[in-house]
């Protein structure tokens, strides 16, 4: 069982979470960035910032996870990144 730490509910089984994809640099609201936002998602080898949802509590959070080792480095609520 893989554990993901919810900033509200503490460490939980990752099966309780829904993956919502990478935090995007490009915005679909900006016409010049539309194609980038729609099709060219982040796909690094390394730490990726990504959206997750803890489904039972409907908590939306951000996780920093390494895409090669699968190690979760940090989790926090949006706009509350620890210093």
């Amino acid at each position, binding site marked *: 069982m*893989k554990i993901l730490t919810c900033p509200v509910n503490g460490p939980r089984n990752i099966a309780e979470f829904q*993956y919502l994809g990478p935090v995007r640099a490009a915005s679909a609201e900006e016409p010049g960035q539309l*194609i980038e936002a*729609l099709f060219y998602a982040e*796909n690094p080898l390394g730490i990726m910032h990504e959206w997750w949802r803890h489904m039972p509590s409907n908590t939306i959070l951000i996780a920093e996870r390494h895409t*090669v080792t699968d190690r979760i480095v940090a989790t926090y609520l949006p706009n509350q990144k620890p210093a």
Partner: protein
Amino acid sequence: MPFTLLRYGLRSKHASFGDIPSTPALKRSYDVVIVGGGGHGLAAAYYLSNVHGIRNVAVLEKGYLAGGNTARNTTTVRSNYMTEESVRFYAEGVRLFETMSQDLGFNIMYSQRGQLTLAHSDATMRSFHLRAEMGKHVGTRIEVVDARTVKELVPHLNLDIGGMHEVLGGLWHADGGTARHDAVAWGYARHASRRGVEIHQRTEVAGFDVSGDRVTHVRTNRGTIAAGQVLQAVGGLNGQVAALAGIRLPIRCFPLQAMVTQPLKPFLHTLVSSANLHTYLVQSSRGEVVIGGGSDPYQLASTRSTLDQKEHLAEGALHLFPFLHKVKLLRQWAGITDMTPDYSPIMGASPLANYWLDCGWGTWGFKATPVAGKRMAETIATGKVPDILKPFDLRRFDSFALLNEMGATAASH
């Protein structure tokens, strides 16, 4: 033929088989450098050297020959897609598989037994009708069948699945089949190397020298080589290798997991797939049941397996064939799939004039090994992208001319 075989069998000394040559020293310059020694790259090398007479070719492979996704796929060959462009392309691939053993003089164990995709809902049945009509229009063997015919095709299949996922019918694709993945790569490698293609294993690309809109040199861990043209076909690392040439690709990587059981007596003739259960099964010629279809739920570039996904695959397999519950698993693995937004590959030109792309093969690359190799070789030899590849151009994303095949993957991801 039978007497030749008998004489061969009774002979006491046999000539050695003619293995794939060991890695030579790198030359300073090649007409074509193929990055990636998997099925696609080797097929392209075969067609370049055997059909187009371009023999000064190097295939660079970071690991060992055909050890990436060529070794990890679940060997499904089919052409039952949704769009006309895709069906035409994949149907050519199926035709090449049908004659490959003869063409290569190498038994790739191609077994055209038909593929059956199951529908558990009316919505799926409707999409099957669309795919069947498109397939007939292009000239492939495909039809929608009812539950009774499903039972006749696969007598051991559990049709009611506890009432949860009752099988309403299926998409029967008589052209579908399976082949030995390693043999496909080895067959191409053998013929390519006989015509002078150099296969460099343990040779990793570290970067490209770009001058204007052309790649001039390929930098590797064994030295730098000049390249007339470059073909990229590196499976799960396509995004990273393209970035070395300054090219961005619309790719996200997900692991796809699979496993095989211990060998059983033959009971499953056709390839069976269920998108609802995210599972597909095929019994190999050795009797092992290959179970695949589980993509990880989040982006990752590691080929580790997870218990969650393996349990999920086993659950789907047991719904379809409950009597497999005592069967042991022999091997399990994962491969990195380079998924595109529309579930179609990216083939043809890149922003660089002499750099060609054969990537974005996600979970559907093996079946296209011969046709992608043939058509990419044609592209490189003539400098012109053939009509059949044009819909797969990278620039389709800029003009929203997508080729949506999301519903036609063997198991939805």
